[in-house]
């Protein structure tokens, strides 16, 4: 399992990038949900690819893990319609 460890210098670059993105969220994007979640997505991509080394694992592992996780998370978005229905206390117009 030691063939995909990368370099410490690379890890430091990723570490600094993630911290910079956290500061961007707090100081520049506060209150803008979609922008903040997009930045969080970039942070997650960096952490998964470089800290967790998924980027250097076999493609079959990436294909087995990433699409199914994204599918489940995307399908959870169907709750929003009901959330808006609760907010206005009436169903969407047909």
């Amino acid at each position, binding site marked *: *399992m*030691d063939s995909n*460890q990368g370099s*410490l210098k690379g*890890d*430091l670059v990723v*570490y600094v990038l*993630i*911290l910079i993105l*956290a*500061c961007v*969220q*707090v100081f520049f*994007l*506060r*209150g803008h*949900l979609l922008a*903040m*979640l997009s*930045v*969080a997505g970039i*942070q*997650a991509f960096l*952490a*998964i690819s470089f*800290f*967790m080394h998924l980027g250097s*694992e*076999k493609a*079959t*592992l990436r294909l*087995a*893990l990433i699409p*199914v*996780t994204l599918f*489940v*998370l995307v399908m*959870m*978005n169907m*709750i*929003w319609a*009901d*959330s*808006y229905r*609760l*907010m206005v206390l009436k169903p969407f117009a047909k």
Partner: protein
Amino acid sequence: MSEANLSMGHGAGVMEASPFAIPSKKLVMWLFIISDACTFGAMLYAYGYLKNAAADWPHPFESASIMNALLMTFILVTSSLTILIGVRAAKAGNKSKAMLWTFITIVLGLAFAALHLKEWMGLINEGVRLFQNPWGSPMFGASFFAITGLHLAHVVSGAVALLVVILGYKRGRYNSDDLEIWSLYWHFVDLVWMFVVPMIYLMNVKA
């Protein structure tokens, strides 16, 4: 079945080689991580649902709380770096360095937990309870404590797991692969926090 697949070990001569080219215990950790990601995803979606449907959702966080959350982010991301250094040292066979950096990671995790509890105590002192608060929708407390509490439980259990693994590594019971596998869990806990901060803290800043 090729000769390469007839390797020594459990099920030798019967089992095919892993299509993922990783040990089964690492694959199990990855499967656990994606199931946990879906759990946190569901909780954050449920939080968004409640916030969206409530007209009087509270915005209790002042800039001191936001700076505290930023400090917690700094500590958690730094702990991800320290465990990487620890794993790298373990792979190189440097036991003392691996132990040092893993212990630093555990201390950082406990510092994160302490800051988290301080934040909780501040809100509790202001009157926030599971199903009531002085400002608005009573579901704020339930969702806030549920999500941050689950994350806090992950941090504390991760610190305990790292302690068990590093002590076992010292005695020769566990090896560098075990430390690497638990470091995946630690990075995942860090990753979840990156979504908790914007949704829970940065969307509820006091005007």
